[in-house]
């Protein structure tokens, strides 16, 4: 965390709970950086999160109203708060297991209804807090504590899912692309309507060590190698795209 952003943290917070090498600290830093650059008033923002590691990005750290909810239901809680008090800038920050696996129905319905929420999904492709079980975002073949022979089910492409559900702004970046990610966070915090930003955030503790990335640095390196831009992806064949993660803005319908 940059020292100049510490003013956005609760005074009693002295450390974060994230494991060494976790990407969530970068996500936290960039969200606060975007708030700082946009000069947003923290007293007008409500941060809503569900259950899991990423849900701890705002709660209890951010010095604003925070609503730490039930597993999977952050968007339903956020919907109620936003509809009753439209003056609140409601930002949902949670993980892939929370927002998509258990909470997927709320996610697609909020996108369909175009509820004015900024949803930031920190995707670590695994259930980190509960011990590394397979998620609906775990790549095919990946090793987890519940797929010891490799994951046999295909993962969701979250951005395609949210595009189909009607989200106004859909983007994906990795924490290894901080400048593009910062720009995307700024957009999602200021755009009207439902926005969805997927942030690839590595989990060395639960995912990396099981999948041939022995150190956090190895995980970061492999993310940098795997992430390619939408433009670059357009010149690749289906086979060449195998294992690649396409990043960029998939939809930008400004209202």
């Amino acid at each position: 965390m940059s020292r100049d952003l510490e003013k956005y943290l609760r005074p009693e917070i002295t450390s974060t709970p994230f494991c060494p090498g976790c990407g969530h600290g970068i996500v936290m830093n960039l969200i606060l950086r975007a708030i700082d650059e946009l000069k947003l008033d923290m007293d007008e923002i409500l941060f809503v999160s569900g259950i899991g590691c990423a849900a701890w990005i705002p709660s209890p750290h951010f010095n604003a109203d925070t609503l730490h909810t039930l597993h999977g239901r952050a968007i339903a809680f956020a919907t109620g708060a936003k509809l009753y008090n439209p003056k609140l800038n409601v930002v949902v920050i949670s993980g892939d297991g929370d927002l998509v696996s258990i909470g997927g129905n709320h996610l697609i319905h909020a996108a369909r209804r175009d509820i004015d929420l900024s949803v930031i999904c920190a995707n670590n492709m695994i259930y980190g807090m509960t011990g590394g079980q397979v998620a609906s975002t775990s790549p095919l073949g990946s090793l987890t504590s519940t797929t010891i022979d490799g994951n046999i089910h295909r993962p969701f492409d979250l951005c395609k899912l949210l595009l189909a559900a009607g989200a106004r702004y859909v983007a994906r970046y990795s924490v290894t692309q901080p400048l593009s990610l910062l720009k995307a966070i700024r957009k999602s915090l200021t755009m009207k309507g439902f926005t969805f930003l997927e942030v690839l955030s590595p989990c060395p503790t639960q995912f990396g060590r099981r999948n041939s990335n022995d150190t956090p640095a190895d995980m970061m390196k492999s993310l940098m190698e795997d992430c390619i831009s939408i433009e670059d992806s357009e010149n690749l064949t289906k086979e060449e795209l195998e294992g690649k993660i396409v990043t960029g803005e998939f939809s930008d319908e400004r209202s």
Partner: protein
Amino acid sequence: MGYKEIKSVLSPGTYYFSGNEALTEGAIAAGCRYYAGYPITPSSEIMERISCRFKEVQGVFIQMEDEIASICSVIGAVWAGAKAMTATSGPGFSLMQEGIGYAAFTETPLVIVDIQRAGPGTGQATRVGSGDLMQAKWGSHGDYQVIALSPWSVQEMYDKTIDAFNLAERYRVPVFIMGEEAIGHLRENISVKEKAMIFNRIKKRGGSPFDAKDEDGVPPMPSFGEGEKLLVTGSTHDGFGIRKTDDPLVHSRLVKRINNKILNNREEIIETESYYIDDAEIIIISYGFTARASLFAVNHFREEGKKVGLLRLKTIWPFADKVINEIGSSAKKIFIPEMNMGQISGEIRKYAACEIISYNQTDGEVIHPDKIISEVKRFL
């Protein structure tokens, strides 16, 4: 803040309403301006009427994707400052249980209406039952208290809904209206008075929203957007909402307080009504729609000079243990007719020392007065 007499939203007068319609008007009178729900028989008329009436009173209505989303969005709206409600029936009530535990633990005032149908499972969706009373008490995991009311008339569907919002705000607790299909769909005249007593939540700037040192045990409740930098969490938390998930003292204090704030105030919360019990040898204890048939039976016996009385439970939870304990020592026998397998008679057996006879009917039909009369005659 606190109790205040305010003008009723409906013009004073007589209205011919179904129970579900009257309940909706009671909610609006109490200040409910957020409603989220999901269609389910036999409660759907509440949501349909809300969807029209909220346009007239500037309320916020949304039909959610399921009952889980409904209860969760209600909680979100309450913390954003709303008085809020959802209505459902058995299967939806089951889905809401995790949210109910969250609301109890975060001390979120809200009202949930359960127009009970014949369960378990999908059961008989259009038929009557009263089988959700123990679920209302114990449905979510862990130890917590709620308040559950049992209206017996269309008038009470209006009045008790106002009471439900007042109790929710007064004690910062989920309050249930345990209606039954028969009362939801019954049509009767009701009277709307010019004014109603309404409780608005207590606020205190900078106060601890999750701790109260006094005997009452109910903390003030701020809303989002007031600059209080609120921390709301369903994890164990201290007075300011900071998670304390491995502190034994914080957990036990919090669990005890959210239980005691209801139990210590139960004399103020619990309402019962009695008919001919002073000299009664046999007392029928009844609630909800069944209490109407029970009163008919009691009147019949009194005309015959038989010493039969009625105790009606208007509040189901917290339980009227004190009055039932007294009745258990004054009466010879207690008779309890229920549209379930004896959920409340089991509770009564804990507190009443006399002989107890249960009559349980779970056929999707209301209990007929003649049935109560013939059952009581067996041991009269």
